[in-house]
């Protein structure tokens, strides 16, 4: 079969562009971008919810009757080769299309192991969906195979992320990963890949024999069931034997090094993808420090992302963070550092943050929208007192810090 004929006959010519459009549109629904490719790709992998069941259903639809068609062929060629020559546009085209759609929706190119792992997981998930669709159409009448393949994949991919089962979360091809500071857990990636490999390689082996077209349908159905159960068994075994802690988002802290630079006597340590924010943050702090000093408050010498340094103010600087958010982030980080407590909450803490936020140059309206009118009114009152006696603000701030009730993180 010529490549062009295979593309036309398999339906890939119209199905893949449609899948690309829908998957990229769906993947782009979450618009917050951190600038960290692994995080953005994980979010845009939402396209998988659509692509996996759609591919399984379409493969089942297109493959129907193919086994009957090739059954009379001479028993010299491997069934797998026959299938690949006829169906490569869907078997390889659909996974590739999803990966492209995810990259386009994320607006990111994979640049580290985590990001590439996510791309590979997406590829393998859609490939396995296509192969299970094929196997369903091989084992069952098409009227049953098409809805069954689609719904099983929809339920598996869609219900996993919100379930409370740790094993499901770490095997379901999705990752609740959405910030610069965390990345997909490698143990979950390994387990998911093994699950997908066992199923897809198993179906490949089932097809490999030149007599595969003559395998009775009930046997194919049984083999498929065994493969799925076996795949889960392998995945669960990997999770259990790894000894690594599992969590419901299948993520782990990002451990790659920060890019540190000193500008205007402020050391700024950010993730490499946020390096272009260094100058803006340093300039903001260099304007803020004289004000803090005049009010009798500690100045800022160091900023960091991911809370890596104990003596540095923790900041947010991702691609989706606005200039105002960055200023608020510095204020929050400053109060957290001064209080020695990241879990504090309540009006008194909001007043302290509002005060620092106002000092960074934010307008009261901008601060009110985030911390409420009471916090801003308290901060403005303290600043007004500071017109006559600047040190009074520092005393007020120190008393506020002492009164904070620190809630330990859950």
């Amino acid at each position, binding site marked *: 079969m010529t490549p062009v004929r295979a593309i036309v006959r398999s339906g890939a010519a119209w199905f893949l562009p449609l899948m690309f459009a829908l998957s990229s549109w769906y993947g782009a629904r979450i618009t917050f971008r951190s600038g960290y490719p692994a995080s953005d790709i994980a979010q845009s992998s939402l396209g998988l919810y659509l692509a996996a069941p759609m591919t399984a259903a379409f493969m089942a639809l297109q493959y129907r009757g193919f086994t009957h068609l090739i059954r009379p062929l001479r028993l010299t060629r491997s069934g797998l080769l026959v299938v690949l020559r006829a169906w490569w546009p869907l078997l390889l085209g659909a996974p590739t299309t999803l990966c492209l759609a995810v990259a386009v929706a994320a607006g990111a190119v994979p640049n580290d192991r985590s990001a590439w792992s996510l791309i590979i997981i997406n590829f393998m998930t859609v490939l396995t969906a296509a192969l299970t669709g094929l196997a369903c159409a091989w084992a069952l009448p*098409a009227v049953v195979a098409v*809805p069954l393949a689609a*719904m099983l994949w929809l339920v598996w991919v869609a*219900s996993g992320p*919100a379930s409370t089962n740790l094993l499901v979360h770490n095997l379901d091809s999705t990752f609740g990963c959405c910030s610069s500071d965390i990345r997909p857990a490698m143990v979950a990636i390994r387990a998911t890949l093994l699950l997908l490999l066992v199923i897809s390689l198993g179906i490949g082996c089932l097809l490999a024999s030149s007599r595969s077209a003559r395998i009775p349908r009930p046997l194919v159905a049984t083999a498929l069931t065994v493969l799925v159960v076996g795949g889960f068994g392998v995945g669960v075994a990997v999770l259990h034997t790894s000894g690594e802690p599992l969590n419901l988002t299948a993520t782990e802290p990002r451990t790659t090094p920060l890019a540190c630079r000193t500008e205007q006597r402020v050391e700024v340590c950010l993730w490499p993808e946020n390096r272009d924010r260094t100058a803006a943050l340093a300039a903001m702090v260099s304007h803020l420090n004289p004000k803090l000093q005049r009010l009798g408050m500690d100045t800022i010498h160091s900023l960091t992302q991911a809370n890596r340094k104990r003596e540095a103010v923790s900041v947010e600087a991702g691609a989706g963070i606005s200039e105002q958010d960055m200023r608020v982030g510095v204020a929050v980080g400053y109060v957290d550092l001064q209080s020695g407590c990241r879990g504090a909450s309540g009006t008194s803490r909001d007043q302290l943050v509002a005060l620092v936020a106002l000092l960074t140059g934010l307008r009261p309206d901008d601060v009110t929208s985030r911390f409420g009118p009471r916090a801003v009114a308290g901060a403005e009152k303290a600043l007004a007192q500071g017109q006559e006696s600047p040190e009074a603000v520092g005393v007020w701030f120190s008393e506020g810090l002492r009164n904070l009730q620190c809630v330990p993180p859950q």
Partner: protein
Amino acid sequence: MMLWIRARRPWWMAGALVLMLGIDRLVGELALSVPALFGGGVNFVFLRTYLPLIWAAAIADSFAGRGLSIEARPTLLASMPVSRLGLLDAGLFVVASSTAAVLFSGLQPGGLSAVAPVLVLSGVACIGTLQAGPAVGAFASTMLMLLTSIYPRNAPAARFIHILQPDGEPAWSTACGFVVCLAAAGMLATNSALTRLRAAEVSAL
């Protein structure tokens, strides 16, 4: 008449109906957690939302005429006037689909608003089957379920797109169900089913 009954396999329809109602009774209220982006407002979907696909598969199977071998089909066409065949098919479709819809919705708290998914999927499966074969009928209904399920709740006109989901606009969904069913019944009555009986069918293998 017996040949027609064999061709339409009403026992498969009855079996599908019993299966659908049985699963609904046993595990229909099983909540599948899904991302809030397409959950029913509180990020879950009841399993029963997907059950009408079982009925759609039965409709696709029935109106493909797969109950009769290729050799037996000319006998059926010779023994029954074409107009009568069309009327019998349309009657069977309307009665069976209405019964399935009413029985399915009778078990649910939403009452008659739950008839819409069964009607819509019956109609889509039937039209797809008559136009291009039972596999396409099943595929069309599956894709409709899939695409409407994942259409985000915060996207434009989501209430009118979710015609198969409980959070859709009930009057609009029911109207869609009636229109699609009427179209399918009209196609059956005007003998579109003949095409399928005459087709040397490999579509549903």
